[in-house]
């Protein structure tokens, strides 16, 4: 448990330092979507490992898959709406400061963000349950 906490603390410090160095605190709209996709990939990989190690049952894993798919679809629609409204981004890959994300895209993004927060709550609850179970054992 001590090693686990230490590892997480070090990992968090590395990420926070990297974010501060690169200015990730203020990414572009598409940059935010990209990081969210990468977050989905990271979470999916983590849970795949968890399922393979037997830490999550099929029901739990299916719930997580449903939430991740919802988030992915929300982000995907957001991306498409934004690029339709801001074609300069699509053509050049450069941010277009003159083009604000359309309201429909922001709404979709907020929905995906809400689903992401729900997933985080679910993960927290699972971790709390595991800690309780481990406490009851020892």
């Amino acid at each position, binding site marked *: 448990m001590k090693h686990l906490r230490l590892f*997480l603390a070090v990992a968090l410090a590395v990420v926070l330092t*990297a974010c501060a160095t690169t200015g990730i605190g203020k990414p572009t709209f598409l940059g935010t979507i990209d990081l969210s*996709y990468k977050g*989905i990939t990271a979470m999916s990989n983590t849970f795949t490992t968890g399922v393979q*190690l*037997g830490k999550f*049952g099929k029901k739990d894993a299916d719930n997580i898959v449903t939430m991740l*798919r919802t988030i992915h679809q929300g982000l995907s629609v957001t991306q498409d709406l934004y690029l339709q409204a801001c074609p300069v981004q699509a053509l050049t890959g450069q941010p277009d400061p003159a083009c604000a994300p359309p309201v429909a895209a922001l709404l979709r993004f907020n929905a995906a963000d809400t689903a992401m927060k729900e997933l985080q709550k679910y993960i927290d609850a699972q971790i709390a349950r595991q800690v309780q179970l481990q406490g009851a054992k020892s």
Partner: protein
Amino acid sequence: MIGPNTLIAMQMGMELIKLARDAMASGVDVKVADLDRSRTEAAAAIDRLQAASDARGAAPAVP
């Protein structure tokens, strides 16, 4: 011996570090082609999770 929880935590930490490294490599702005690749990778990762879930079947989780 390293326990399963530690392994999961290590995996999570490694993914976070990879995430930050990718973001550093690509800079704050993102090209649309990279964004599309991230979208495809995320969908593939979800599919792998679904496959792992299906492989696991209805067996109860290990406490």
